[in-house]
């Protein structure tokens, strides 16, 4: 670049580059910060800051403070919401469970097979080769057309229409019924049917999980659906999720059956715990099941002092159990939990009172868990743990401490640096910065947002970027004044011209942050929240608040030159 073009860039043309016709207007708008506008701005900021106050208190302090507020004050006037600490900061367990679709389908196929068997029996139709289980369904073969005629309407009843809360009847059916050549009839579960079952299984699981987690006495567990087939369980303060996982890993499907007598045909071979997992024949017929229980409590056997579970049946269960024990005196009962015989007592006398006990070689913890499982009911399907994250309370505390120190140090660095560079204007930027961090806190409190460790990093990072808007404005002001404007018109032009740049640069940051919010989960989302709020508040503090302070400073000092 030669000298001539530089002169053109910096010298004559730049100096001539002013808009005289706008000067007078500029002087007016810059100074016109009416009392009402000042009050409005201050009120907005004070309210924003006050909203953050509950977050600074411990939960006991917060409670005491809320109790201390006189009852005539309307509750919406009192800031009560506070920032929630993420599990990575307060410690606790995060367990993501997924409904085991294969297990669910297996269960549904078994039910389907039982239904078909019942219908065949009712209509007195025999299937050649019996009922074959195929993938996702069953197959029967009825060569006789007249038999099929009788059978088909009944089979069709099995196909339930799927209803959807949003769309109403979707027209899909849970089971597809097909007639092939040679009288082959197949019933298969449809994709829509399976999806619907999975969805309902998640809903039911949430209920069951809630009962189970509550039974362990943990405080404030959060249990929510995630995606189509998952449940997220978060338990703050839980250090070793072993018991929780043991509880959630069991389906909790309890059945009372009878050990089969030699030569019996309709049997399942199930492992028996007392026999070291050796398989024993158990009758398929179920006398009573977990759903028939009204209560289950862990206790000790008064005679042997062994841990046991006492249970109580509802009326239906009591009746069936009473009848079965009367008819099968001397035989062995099989108490089956999730397809394992956990106890096989001999029926000494009819049990007609509707209560009984499960004994076996259990530990105290095992009977406690068993009682919880029985009380909370069975899960509709097996749940698999697909993700687990546990943070000990020590690490959380250390993280908060380190985060605090980093925030203070970053604040001090930036505040000193801004003051050293811009003097009074730096001081103004620093006040805006303090308000900015305060407003992030206030907004997060109102939203009851979760503060995570990356969120703390977000706060520290916004301390650095927040002053960017101030820097843009100040540098612009300096340029405008240097190019020959009066100080007030330079300030005005600085704000006006920098504003577009501030919007552009913050928008690009915001785009990245919003995507991160939708994409990330847990801690990373916490970072995105802080960052988005930081961008919002920085525009308010850097533009409105800074402008006001500079206007007031100008009115007060009437300076002849820029202080930097």
């Amino acid at each position: 670049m030669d000298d001539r073009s530089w002169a053109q860039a910096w010298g004559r043309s730049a100096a001539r580059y002013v808009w005289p016709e706008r000067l007078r207007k500029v002087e007016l708008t810059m100074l016109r910060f009416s009392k009402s506008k000042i009050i409005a701005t201050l009120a907005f900021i004070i309210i924003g800051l006050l909203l953050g106050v509950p977050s600074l208190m411990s939960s006991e302090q917060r409670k005491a403070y809320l109790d201390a507020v006189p009852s005539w004050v309307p509750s919406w006037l009192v800031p009560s919401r506070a920032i929630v600490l993420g599990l990575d900061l307060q410690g606790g367990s995060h367990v993501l469970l997924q409904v085991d679709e294969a297990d669910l389908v297996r269960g549904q196929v078994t039910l389907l097979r039982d239904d078909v068997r019942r219908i065949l029996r009712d209509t007195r139709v025999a299937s050649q080769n019996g009922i074959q289980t195929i993938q996702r369904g069953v197959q029967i073969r009825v060569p006789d057309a007249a038999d099929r005629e009788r059978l088909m309407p009944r089979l069709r009843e099995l196909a339930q229409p799927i209803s959807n809360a949003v769309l109403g009847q979707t027209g899909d059916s849970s089971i597809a019924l097909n007639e092939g050549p040679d009288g082959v009839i197949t019933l298969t579960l449809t994709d829509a049917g399976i999806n619907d079952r999975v969805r309902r299984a998640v809903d039911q699981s949430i209920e069951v999980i809630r009962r189970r987690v509550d039974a362990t006495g943990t405080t404030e567990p959060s249990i929510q659906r995630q995606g189509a087939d998952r449940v997220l369980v978060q338990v703050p303060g839980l250090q070793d999720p072993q018991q929780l996982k043991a509880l959630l890993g069991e389906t909790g499907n309890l059945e009372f059956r009878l050990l089969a007598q030699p030569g019996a045909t309709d049997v399942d071979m199930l492992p028996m715990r007392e026999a070291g997992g050796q398989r024993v024949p158990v009758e398929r017929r179920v006398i009573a099941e977990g759903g028939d229980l009204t209560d289950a409590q862990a206790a000790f056997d008064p005679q042997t002092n062994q841990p046991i579970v006492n249970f109580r049946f509802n009326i239906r269960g009591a009746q069936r159990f009473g009848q079965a024990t009367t008819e099968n005196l001397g035989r062995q009962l099989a108490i089956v939990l999730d397809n394992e015989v956990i106890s096989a007592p001999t029926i000494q006398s009819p049990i007609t009172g509707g209560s009984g006990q499960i004994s076996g070689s259990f530990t105290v913890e095992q009977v406690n868990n068993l009682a919880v499982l029985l009380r909370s009911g069975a899960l509709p399907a097996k749940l698999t743990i697909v993700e687990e994250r546990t943070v000990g309370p020590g690490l959380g505390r250390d993280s908060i401490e380190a985060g605090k120190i980093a925030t203070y140090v970053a604040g001090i660095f930036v505040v000193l640096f801004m003051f050293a560079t811009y003097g009074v204007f730096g001081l103004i930027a620093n006040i805006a910065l303090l308000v900015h961090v305060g407003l992030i806190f206030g907004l997060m409190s109102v939203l009851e947002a979760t503060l995570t460790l990356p969120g703390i990093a977000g706060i520290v990072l916004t301390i650095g970027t927040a002053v960017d808007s101030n820097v843009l404005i100040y540098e612009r002001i300096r340029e405008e004044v240097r190019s020959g404007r009066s100080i007030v018109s330079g300030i005005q032009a600085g704000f006006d011209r920098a504003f577009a740049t501030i919007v552009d640069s913050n928008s690009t940051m915001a785009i990245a942050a919003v995507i991160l919010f939708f994409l990330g989960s847990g801690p990373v989302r916490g970072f995105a929240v802080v960052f988005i709020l930081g961008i919002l508040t920085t525009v308010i503090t850097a533009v409105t608040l800074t402008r006001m302070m500079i206007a007031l400073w100008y009115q007060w000092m009437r300076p002849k030159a820029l202080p930097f």
Partner: protein
Amino acid sequence: MRLVRLWPENSRFDFMRFRRFSFPLSALISIATAIMLLTVGLNFGIDFKGGTLMEIQAKSGQADVAQIRQTAEGFGFGDVEVQEFGSAGEVSLRFPIQPGGEAAQAGVVQKARDTFSNEYDFRRVETVGPRVSGELVQSGTIGVVLSVLAVLFYLWFRFERELAVASIIGTLHDIVLTIGFFVITRHEFNMTSIAAILTIVGYSLNETVVVFDRTRELMRRYKTMPTEELLNLSINHTMSRTIMTAATTALSLLALVLFGGQAIQGFAQVMLYGVVICTYSAICISSPMLIYIGLRGSEAVKVPEGKAAAAE
């Protein structure tokens, strides 16, 4: 009081000259990154690879790393990485994903807790199964691609085509170099790293946009100025701001690196590197790129003649 000036007033530095070094240098680093990415690869954390991560701390304050390693290898859960960090006897253990699907992962934690819990506190335990890690890889990739597209769309909407193309080249450059940082330093690459990359995308554009806002303004003011001069002028005008912002952001991140604690240090280091890279690319990559892309093409049509004349 004498105030600090990090950049002289009325500077006339010829930044465009740097492109003779910066273009080959960046191209070289980008190619090296691509090669290393394919040969060495990223050091994926359990978020993306699956497996189990544990951080334990000796109750006595003194961890016996050799013994932990020996014991952990004896578990038979495959190659275990044992690493000491911090000062107070903290040790991290990383177990690979276990064959046998989701249910098989639980055994690792159980075994480790049974073995170590007498002498060590478990500060962090994370297990990610194969299904979730696959999804995280997917959403991480989608996120980076989506953010680049969204930002491209914004720039296209807000700026002239040439400026948008140049800034997106700069941003891609920054993403590549950040990934290069991960490859070379063997920093663990996890979900937080994706957050860092997206933040760097934001910061990178922030830097470019500030310069280009000025370029656009000057373009309208000096209709006849050659592109190279125009770009030099834009950078010189915005340089003191660029340095100020880079300095304040870097200072904050430095505070995080020094005091933020082990868990956040990695993120802060990457971001600190990112700030340097973004500043460099805005000045030495995106801006000179415009010399080759051409600047005046669409602009000459957009500004009405009368207004342009008045500005001169």
